């Protein structure tokens, strides 16, 4: 029997809590990684997956201790090695690619210098060969013009390019194993798909092993052969990617899969209620018992072992034979269908937003430069009671448009009008109290949008006092009612945000918005800071509130599947310009705008049998072109010079579905269905 590349035997890692007790973060984990194998470690935040990956390098974060077990790399104990030995291995044979490479690259050194340093420390390449080798590595990670990249500083690269540079640095030491800690989280969908393809190819070509840590089952499905599911510091399920992602036999894994919104399924995902136990809080029984649909009395009293099955899977559950009864697909509600005769609630009329402010000299000389505004020509009518999804990659101007509607950022052109009431004042300070109350905004990250020094009661009082002048008992009663509506109890009122979980905080933020009894709620990436199971619960809550309150939503997200699950109509934005607008079913099927096609192709489904279609270059454009189609530089279906010079016309399809393209709807339909047939063959 050959020794595995990485062998973890029964490791437990913990820290000393405030009370002096030892609290375990990881409990009895055994994991082997063989040469050339790629293993995915999946789990929600706090499940210990990053700690596990770092432990493979013999590294523990400050305060953590190895309680028992051993970690071997190439047969030798990592925790028994000397500092010099570890320095040689880390970054050499065993390389780490962190989540945010922008922060792990040295900001004051050029990419070339950092690569050469990695080569000097970890490779056998002759010194004279360093620059040539560095250029070669940058080429291998498919960075355009490697020579030029060598002289750039990290901040001059886009997020995807920084991640590629980090991969090149990791490859400098000819690693036999690569540890990846959420390497594509925070990147745009198209960039993520390209990076994952790159990692797959590199691992295959070099016979390199990969340990891929992520909460994103789609990414895991794309790159991993085997998958380990972690929950509360334990391995609860291990098996081949197909076994784990297609027919998982652990209730938690099934719940996790069901809570992911999928492009192929327009229904709302099912939420996984409850929250995982904190370190040391798991009790004697199964750690998942409180959230498990299959739990029985026996599960509370004794902890299940990790049982190896003949199929090759390992599962930590007494009732895994029954797990198949739990649904994997969203049995959640189907969003209510759009009422075509609904009156308009809000009208955006040719809205233009520019961050460019002419300088004093420009003003004096009355110079008007050729600046393309950040957001241009936004023309949308939002019907009462509908949910309009705004999708696009980072920099597409989705949040900018929301800010303009909320009055935080005045548009430089165009008008925003409320139905029957005329134009909204551009700045929030000039709006009437009634307009202010009717439009409410929910932010992305509740850690940032809730004042950390205010109790939940004080947070909810703000809109109630301001808009309704409530005081005393009435104020308290209303706060309690609103908390109840977002499925939190009145006992939350005297807590501080820091005492709540991420999902609970976002519910408080939603409660604050709904306290104003708004007509229109603007949701700015409201679920992207949350774990998937929590995200499903928040989506469900938003959908419920809409059904009971008749609220209109503008829902901004970069996640196409999330937008699909909630929206009646979808608008696709690129570089602050509209590309496509229509009922969500039509936008998500052919014909599509070429940009929508690229976006949809890059979405990763948590299914190892699907592959993304990568049709456009992975380039991040910093500013929109001055004229013509905004997508002209990356479009895979570009016609010719007309795309560079003329603004494309709206092509109208059925049911108000419109595409802004020089191709006619029929052309797009024909060419796209041809392509998808080709792919099927």
């Amino acid at each position, binding site marked *: 029997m050959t020794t595995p590349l990485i062998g973890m035997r029964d490791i437990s890692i913990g820290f000393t809590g405030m009370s002096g007790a030892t609290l375990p973060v990881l409990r009895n984990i055994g994991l082997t990684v063989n040469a050339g194998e790629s293993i995915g470690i999946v789990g929600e935040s706090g499940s210990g997956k990053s700690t596990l990956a770092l432990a493979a390098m013999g590294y523990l974060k400050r305060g953590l201790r190895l309680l028992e077990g051993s970690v071997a790399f190439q047969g030798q104990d990592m925790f028994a090695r000397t500092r010099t030995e570890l320095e040689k291995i880390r970054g050499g044979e065993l390389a780490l690619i962190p989540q945010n490479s922008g922060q792990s690259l040295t900001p004051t050194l050029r990419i070339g210098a950092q690569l050469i340093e990695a080569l000097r420390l970890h490779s056998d390449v002759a010194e004279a060969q360093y620059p040539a080798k560095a250029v070669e590595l940058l080429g291998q990670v498919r960075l355009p013009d490697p020579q030029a990249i060598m002289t750039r500083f990290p901040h001059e690269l886009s997020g995807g390019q920084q991640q590629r540079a980090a991969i090149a640095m990791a490859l400098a030491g000819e690693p036999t194993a690569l540890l990846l800690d959420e390497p594509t989280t925070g990147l745009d969908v198209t960039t993520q798909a390209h990076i994952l393809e790159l990692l797959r190819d590199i691992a295959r070509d070099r016979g390199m092993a990969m340990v891929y840590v992520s909460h994103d089952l789609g990414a895991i499905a794309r790159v991993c052969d085997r998958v380990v599911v972690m929950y509360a510091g334990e391995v609860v399920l291990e098996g081949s990617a197909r076994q784990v992602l297609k027919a998982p036999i652990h209730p938690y894994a099934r719940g996790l899969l069901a809570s992911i919104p999928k492009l192929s399924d327009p229904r709302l995902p099912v939420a996984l209620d409850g929250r995982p136990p904190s370190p040391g809080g798991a009790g004697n029984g199964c750690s998942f018992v409180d959230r498990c649909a299959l739990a029985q009395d026996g599960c509370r009293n004794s902890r299940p072992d990790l049982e190896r099955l003949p199929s090759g899977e390992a599962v930590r559950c007494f009732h895994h034979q029954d797990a198949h009864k739990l649904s994997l697909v969203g049995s959640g509600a189907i969003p209510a269908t759009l009422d075509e005769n609904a009156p308009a609630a809000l009208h955006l009329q040719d809205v233009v937003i520019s961050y460019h402010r002419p300088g004093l000299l420009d003003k004096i000389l009355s110079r008007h430069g050729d600046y393309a505004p950040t957001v241009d020509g936004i023309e949308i009518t939002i019907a009462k009671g509908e949910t309009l999804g705004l999708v696009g990659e980072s920099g597409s101007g989705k949040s900018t448009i929301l800010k303009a509607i*909320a*009055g*935080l950022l005045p548009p430089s052109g165009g008008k925003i009008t409320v139905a029957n009431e005329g134009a909204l004042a551009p700045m*929030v*300070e000039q*709006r009437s*109290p009634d307009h*202010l*109350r009717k*439009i*409410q*905004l929910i*932010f*992305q*990250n509740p850690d*940032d*949008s*809730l*004042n*950390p*020094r*205010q*109790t939940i*009661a*004080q947070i909810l*009082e*703000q*809109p109630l006092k*301001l808009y309704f002048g409530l005081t*005393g*008992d009435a*104020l*308290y*009663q209303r*706060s*309690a009612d609103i908390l109840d509506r977002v499925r939190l109890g*009145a006992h939350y*009122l*005297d*807590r*501080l945000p820091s005492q709540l979980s991420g999902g609970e905080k976002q519910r408080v933020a939603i409660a*604050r918005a709904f306290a*104003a009894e708004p007509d229109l709620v603007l949701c700015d990436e409201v679920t992207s800071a949350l774990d998937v199971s929590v995200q499903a619960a928040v989506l469900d809550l938003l959908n419920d509130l809409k059904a009971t309150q008749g609220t209109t939503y503008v829902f901004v997200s970069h996640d196409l599947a999330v937008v699909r699950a909630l929206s009646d109509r979808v608008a696709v934005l690129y570089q602050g310009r509209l590309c496509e607008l229509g009922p969500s079913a039509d936008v998500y099927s052919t014909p599509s705008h070429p940009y929508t096609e690229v976006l949809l192709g890059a979405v990763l489904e948590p299914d190892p049998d699907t592959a993304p279609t990568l049709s456009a270059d992975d380039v991040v454009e910093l500013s929109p072109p001055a004229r013509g189609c905004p997508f002209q530089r990356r479009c895979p279906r570009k016609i010719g010079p007309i795309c560079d010079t003329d603004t494309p016309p709206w092509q109208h399809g059925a049911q108000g579905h419109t595409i802004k393209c020089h191709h006619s709807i029929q052309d797009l339909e024909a060419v796209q269905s041809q392509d998808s047939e080709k792919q099927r063959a």
Partner: protein
Amino acid sequence: MTLTAVAPQQNTRLMRTLSVLRDVVSRPSGAIGLFLVVFHVVLALVSPWIVPYDYKAMNSAMMLTGPEATHWLGTDHLGRDVFTRVLLGGREALLVTGIATPIAVAWGGLVGIFFGLIGGRVDEVLMRVVDAFLSLPWILKMLVLIVTFGTGIEVLIPTLAFFYGIPVIRIARAATHDVVARDFISAARARGHSRLTIIRHELLPNVLDTLMVEGAMRWSWMLLAFSSLSFLGFGVSPPTPDWGLMIADARGFMSFAPWGVLGPVIALSSLIIGINLTADALAKALGIDRAQKAPV
């Protein structure tokens, strides 16, 4: 359910205050510092009733005698008991700075928060004015005012409060800038709250920690300034005992009667060290990393 929402809120706030206090005391620097500060404050309150001699009583037969059983710190050049005068010498300084510090932090803090909130060009221009003001030596500015208006408490308190509030503007503005960029401020603006409400409910609670630590630091600097003024003869007028004044009077005899200087020096420095240690522990307990901010 007729519970009022008020009681639990006060509870939360009280609990936080208690936990911060516990954290301060649990650190060696906080425990020593707080002990020194409390010791000095208590001493200043009770000293008139416990001093062994009258601070004005001169004794021409016993001038500049060394420490002995009857006069623990010896006598000064007029034969007055140095120990008595050291015990009483902090009263004036603590009274003046104890009133002037909160005033300085309050006005400097509010102005700083306001500058930080409005931002933009107005903020930039006003901050340059503040910078210009800070570039002049403080002693010069203060002496001009004191020489013009006199040296009584009624002049010293507003003068110190005014000049020591100006650096607070800087700190409060910087702390506000960190908070203003956060989404809960945008949320408050989008709801349509007035500036005053935003300052009171959203900004102030978040800037208060920084202001408290800053206040403690200002207090120690103000004590030094007050003592310096006394030393130069612009603070407390004789025969009222004051550490700065005592040092000034005794420094001529330092070579053969060092106790006259040592007594007030130890008293003054132990108080200032105590305040600094407390501020340090407070900053750590509140999670403000002072190492990253250079003192103004």
